C-alpha cells in the first residue's frame, strides 16, 4: 500500500514535469489537464505504456500540430536512453498526418525561400514580442521561432477577417421573412393580436475572393506567408479560389474543398518542375481570364494579386489584361511587398502603367501592413 502511494506520488511528480515540458514546447498544460492527469494516475492506464501514451496524447493534444509533435516529446521524456522507439503510429505503412513545413520538408517549393528545408529543426518555444514582430519586414525574419510566431499571427489575422462578415440573419423592421420569435414575443402586449411584425434579413452576401499568388524568385521571401494567409482566407470564405503563377498559372483549388498547405506545396512543386524562364504575369492573368474568369468572376468577387509586378513582358502589355480583369470583378487589390523599394516621387516602371486599373494598391510586407490590407479586403 505504501509502495503504491509512493509510486503514485513519484508518478504525479513525473507527470507534472512532463506537463511542464509540453508547455515549454507550445502544447497547452493547465489546471484542467492536471485534474485529468490525476484521474489517469489513479486509473490503471499507468500499467501499459502504449495505452498511457494514447491517453496522454488524447488529453493533451488539441490540434493536428500537437498530435504530430506529441510522440517525439513523449519519447524524449519517457524513453530510456538506447531504448527502441515505441511509437506505434510510425510503424504503420500509412502516411502519418502531415502538416505544412514544420514536419514534412522533403519538397522545397520552387521559387520559395529556403524555409521549407530549414524548418526541420524542432525548436518549439514560446511567442515573441508582437509589436516588434508586427513591424519587422518579412525579409528580415531569419529566426525560426519568429517565423513561427508570425505564421501564428497570420493565422489569427485571417481568422479575424472572417468575423467581420457573417451569414447570420438579423431582425429588421422590413424584409421578406417574418421573425416569428420576435413578432410573437410582443403579441401579449396587444392582447393577443398580431399588430407589430418583425422581419429577418440576411446580412450582405459574403464576398468571394480570387487569390493569385506570384511564386517567382523575386517574391520568394513573402510567398510562403502569403500562401498561408490565402489558405486561411480561403478557408474562412469558401467562395474563394486560389491560383499560383510563375511562368504558368496553376489552379490550387477552392476554399470549399478544404485545402491544406502541404497539398498546395506539393501541387506547386509538381507543376513547377517544368517551369523555365522568368515570370510571366500577363500570360498568367490572361490564362486566368480565359479559362476561369467566366466561371469564377462576378460582381461580388474581389481579386487579390500578390506580386511585385516584375514581368518578362513590357508593363504596357500587362495593363490591358489588368484592366479587363478589373472590369469583371467587384474590386482588384494588388499586394506588392516591395512597394517601398522606390523613393517617393520615383517612378516604378513595372507598376506605374497598371496602377490606373487597380482599386487598391498596398504593401503587406510586415504584419502591420498585412493587417491593414486584411481590413481593406472587406470594405
Amino acid at each position, binding site marked *: 500500500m505504501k509502495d503504491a502511494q509512493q509510486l503514485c506520488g513519484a*508518478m504525479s511528480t513525473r507527470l507534472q514535469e512532463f506537463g511542464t515540458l509540453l508547455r515549454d514546447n507550445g502544447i*497547452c498544460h*493547465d489546471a*484542467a489537464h492536471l485534474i*485529468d492527469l490525476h*484521474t489517469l494516475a489513479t*486509473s*490503471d*492506464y*499507468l*500499467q*501499459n*505504456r*502504449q*495505452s*498511457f501514451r*494514447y*491517453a496522454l*496524447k*488524447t*488529453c493533451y*493534444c*488539441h*490540434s*493536428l500540430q*500537437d*498530435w504530430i509533435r506529441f510522440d517525439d516529446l513523449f519519447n524524449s521524456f519517457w524513453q530510456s536512453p538506447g531504448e527502441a522507439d515505441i511509437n506505434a*503510429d510510425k510503424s*504503420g*505503412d*500509412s*502516411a502519418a*498526418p502531415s502538416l505544412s513545413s514544420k514536419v514534412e520538408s522533403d519538397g522545397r517549393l520552387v521559387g520559395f525561400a529556403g524555409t521549407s528545408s530549414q524548418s526541420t529543426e524542432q525548436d518549439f518555444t514560446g511567442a515573441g514580442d508582437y509589436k516588434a514582430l508586427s513591424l519587422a519586414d518579412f525579409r528580415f525574419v531569419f529566426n525560426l521561432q519568429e517565423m513561427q510566431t508570425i505564421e501564428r499571427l497570420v*493565422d489569427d489575422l485571417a*481568422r479575424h477577417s*472572417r*468575423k467581420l462578415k*457573417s*451569414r*447570420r*440573419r438579423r431582425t429588421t423592421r422590413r424584409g421578406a421573412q417574418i421573425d*416569428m*420569435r420576435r413578432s*410573437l414575443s410582443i*403579441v*401579449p402586449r396587444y*392582447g*393577443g*393580436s398580431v399588430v407589430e411584425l418583425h422581419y429577418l434579413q440576411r446580412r450582405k452576401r459574403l464576398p468571394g475572393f480570387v487569390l493569385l499568388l506570384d511564386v517567382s524568385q523575386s517574391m520568394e521571401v513573402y510567398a510562403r506567408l502569403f500562401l498561408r494567409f490565402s489558405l*486561411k482566407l480561403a*478557408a*474562412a470564405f*469558401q467562395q474563394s479560389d486560389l491560383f499560383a503563377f510563375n511562368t504558368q498559372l496553376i489552379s490550387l483549388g477552392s476554399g470549399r*474543398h*478544404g485545402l*491544406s498547405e502541404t*497539398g498546395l506545396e*506539393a*501541387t506547386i512543386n*509538381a507543376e513547377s518542375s517544368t517551369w523555365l524562364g522568368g515570370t510571366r504575369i500577363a500570360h498568367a492573368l490572361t490564362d486566368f481570364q480565359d479559362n476561369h474568369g467566366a466561371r469564377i468572376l462576378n460582381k461580388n468577387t474581389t481579386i487579390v494579386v500578390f506580386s511585385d509586378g516584375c514581368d518578362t513582358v513590357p508593363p504596357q502589355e500587362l495593363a490591358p489584361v489588368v484592366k479587363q480583369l478589373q472590369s469583371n470583378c467587384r474590386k482588384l487589390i494588388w499586394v506588392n511587398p516591395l512597394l517601398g523599394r522606390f523613393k517617393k516621387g520615383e517612378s516604378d516602371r513595372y507598376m506605374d502603367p497598371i496602377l490606373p486599373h487597380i482599386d487598391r494598391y498596398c504593401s503587406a510586407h510586415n504584419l502591420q501592413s498585412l493587417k491593414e490590407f486584411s481590413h481593406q479586403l472587406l470594405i
Partner: protein
Amino acid sequence: MSQQRLDELDTRLRDTGYIADRALLVALDLMQILSKPLLLEGEAGVGKTGIATSLADALDAKLIRLQCYEGLDAQQVLYDWDYQRQLLAIQMMRGTNSNLTDIADTTSLATDTGAMHQAIYSEQFLLKRPLFQAISHNGPCILLIDEIDRADEEFEALLLEVLAENQVTVPELGTYTATSKPLVILTSNAVRSLSDALRRRCLYHYIDFPDTYKERQIVRARLPQVDEALAAQIVSLVQRLRQEALSKKPGVAETLDWLAALYALDVKDLRNSPEQISHTLPALLKTRSDQQTVENERFLQTWLNESAEQVETSTPPGNSERDDKYDGRSESSESV
C-alpha cells in the same frame, strides 16, 4: 481493468462493423471516464461520423445528431417555440372562454396578458432541438456534432456554455440540467480553425487514412461477400492513389463504394477489367480534375502492369506484427 474495457469496446464496435485502432479506443474510453467531449479530426471519409453511430449501437445509446452549417443559431440547435400552435392558442383564448381549461385559467385570459404569456410559453409549446434533446434525454445518449468547422464562431461560443455546464436555460421556463451526461463527439474537416477555447475543453483524436492491413479488415467487415483477392487489389490501388497529389484523396467510404460498384459489375480481377475500372472511377475519385489526372498520367495502366508482375497475397506480410498493433489483447504490457 482498462485493457478489459478496451477489449470489450473493441469487440462491440467490431460487431457493428467498425474497426477502431487502439488509440481511438483509448480516446473513446477517456471520453466516458473524464466526461469530456471528443473532437475528431481527419480527412473526409475516414470514419469520423461512423464512429459515433457505431458507438451508439455498441453502447445501446440513443444517437442525436446535429449537422452544422453556416448560419446555424440557437433556435436551430437549442430550442424554439411552436409559433403556429401558440398563435392558434392565443386566438382560441381570445375567441372563446370554454373548453380551454387545459391551457390556463380562461376567465382572466382576455385581459390578463401575464397569464396569456405564461400559458403560451409553457413546455407544451416548446420544440426541443438536438442540444436540448441530448440534455433532457433520460438514459445513455451520444450527441454527434458533425462538421463543427462549418458553423460560425458564434455557434462555438454557444456550444461552449452547453458543453461546460451540461444545462440549457430557457428564460421563460427555467434551467434544464442533464440527468445523465451525454457523450459528445465533435467532428471537423478543418475547413476553418476552431477556437482555442473549444479545443481546450475537448479531448482530441486525429483519424488518419487506414493502412493497408486495417483497410482490408474494414472491407472484410463491411463487405464480407466480396472476394478477398479483389478486395486486396482495390485496397492496394487506393493506397497508391492516396500517395498521389489529388485534390480529394479517396477515403474508406469511397473504397467501399468503389468495391461495391465493381462487385455489382461482377469484376473478379482488376487486371482483366480496365474498362470497368475507368467506368466506375467516379465512385472513387470525386472531382473531374482528379479523374483526369489519374487517366492522363496513365496511372492505372502503370499500376496494372506493376500488379501483374507481383502476385498479390491475400494475407498481408508481417501479419503477426500487425496483429500486435491492432489487437490490444496482444499489446505489450510493459509498465510505464
